[in-house]
């Protein structure tokens, strides 16, 4: 993502200072509204490009994507592209009925602006949508890291109990053994734990 050099001495938030380097893709029909939207984005200083109809996949060079949501045309399915590095999406709506709002929700848009487009309010929407998008991405990443950490801990616990049961080890000794194995083989304790659990699964037929 494009960011300006961060200087903690400047009092203006980075999300605002970023506006001049922001890459924005606009999916909007080539009409007066689309023109006003692109013009205002350029006044703000964003690098804006406009296309219609929307691409089937999200452009990976964009920080923000505007999409005109029209009730009479199929919406692109961007769910698959929205994992990992994904731009903020701002829907542009001409109707506010449940059909259109549902399409906006399905899209996973961070914000909505109304047609006819007004210059006033766009900058604030842009900045808030990016903040939500960045927060969501940070949280998703943190969540994935925590989930895998938790799964690893669970495996270590299970492997420890295997060793304690089959080798008559104390809890500390069992963990010590796994740690030494991990160091010797240069892998993580979690991987050693997985190996022990697998091995126990394979070898346990004797006891069955």
């Amino acid at each position, binding site marked *: 993502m494009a960011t300006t050099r961060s200087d903690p001495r*400047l009092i*203006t938030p980075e999300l605002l*200072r970023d506006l001049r380097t922001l890459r924005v893709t606009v999916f909007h029909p080539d009409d007066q509204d689309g023109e006003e939207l692109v013009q205002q984005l350029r*006044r703000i200083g964003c690098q804006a490009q406009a296309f219609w109809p929307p691409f089937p996949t999200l452009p990976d060079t964009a920080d923000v994507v505007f999409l005109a949501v029209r009730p009479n045309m199929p919406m692109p399915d961007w769910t698959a592209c929205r994992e990992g590095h994904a731009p903020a999406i701002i829907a542009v709506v001409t109707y506010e009925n449940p059909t259109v709002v549902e399409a906006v929700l399905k899209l996973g848009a961070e914000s909505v602006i109304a047609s006819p487009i007004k*210059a006033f309010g766009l900058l604030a929407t842009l900045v808030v949508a990016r903040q939500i998008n960045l927060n969501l991405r940070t949280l998703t990443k943190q969540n994935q890291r925590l989930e895998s950490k938790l799964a690893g801990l669970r495996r270590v616990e299970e492997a420890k109990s295997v060793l304690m049961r089959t080798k008559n080890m104390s809890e500390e000794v069992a963990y010590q053994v796994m740690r030494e194995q991990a160091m010797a083989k240069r892998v993580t304790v979690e991987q050693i734990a997985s190996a022990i659990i697998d091995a126990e699964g394979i070898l346990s037929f004797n006891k069955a």
Partner: protein
Amino acid sequence: MSESEPIRVGVLFSQTGDISLIETSQLMGTLFAIEEINEAGGINGRELVPIRYDPASSPGLYRVLAEKLVLQDKINVIFGCYKSSTRKSVIPVIEKWNRLLFYPTLYEGFECSSNIIYTGAAPNQNSVQLAEFMTSNYGARVYMVGSDYIYPYESNRIMTDLVMQKPGGDKVGERYVSLSATLADFSSIIADIKNVQPDFIFSTVVGDSTQYLYKAYAEAGLNPREMPIASLTTLEAEVAQMGFDVAAGHVASAPYFQSIDSPVNRSSLANFRRRFGTDVVPSAGWEAAYFQVHLFANAMRLSGSDAIDVLMPCLLGAQLDAPQGRIQIDPSNHHTCLYPRIGIANTEGQFTLVRQAIRPVHPDPYLVTHSLGDWTIKLGSME
């Protein structure tokens, strides 16, 4: 509409209240241009007639009177407003009825209404140049004093970002006073300034209370040569109000000063004084108010109508020889290409120009982060 029927335009400047000094000068600049246009045969032979109301420096009244101009007087074009808060009150009215406002005042940027032509400076046309001049000549430790409303907050944010780009840059104080502040309100601030010893003071105090900041400064015996007050709004009119001796040595940044040495400026000033006397002191707000009426008249000579839809295409990109130089409306954002200048107040109540733009600077009202040292906006030295 008849070919000879007068063209009525709305004029909204306060002649009473906190902001009346500067808005009266803008009113006179407007009326001066209207007189000139009428004497030269009007607009395609039609007389220009101002419909004026006094909004008394109150944002609520600006809104009510703008509505009156539109609904009762059937006016299509309004000239007016100094403070951002009053412009913001007029916007909903002119946007709802699709009318045009000419706004002749510097402001903090971040706006581009399709129903406004902005003829005052955006921050990239005055703040950046002032920060550059102050930090390179006096130092980068700044103390900020402002009136308590949106323009000072945003101007101070920009100034803080700018001084922080200098080694040793620091904001050592930030104080706000009410628009009706008196001498007593500034005494504790001046005491604090004496104590903190900044390199310079940045004032965004506007209106009648401006004089009290400078008077309190002078009474405390501070020296403008060592620690001047820098401002975007303390110009000739404010200087005349506080007294020449009180103002001498302090610094201002604006696209227009009376001291500009050009034939257009000299003749405009002479004509103005002949008609309106010397009570009203011309400054940047006066000049923008004056040239924007001529911009309107020129555009309407081409469009033949003052309806915004036909008038606007003739305004966007239009050029004019204004007292400050040849200005142009930037078609992409409705603001004006202007000539930034730095002046230091002298004992005659005028500003001695020390820096001046070599070419017009394009308005960039949405610039969030201004940079010092941008050579495209570098001013020519006049020393």
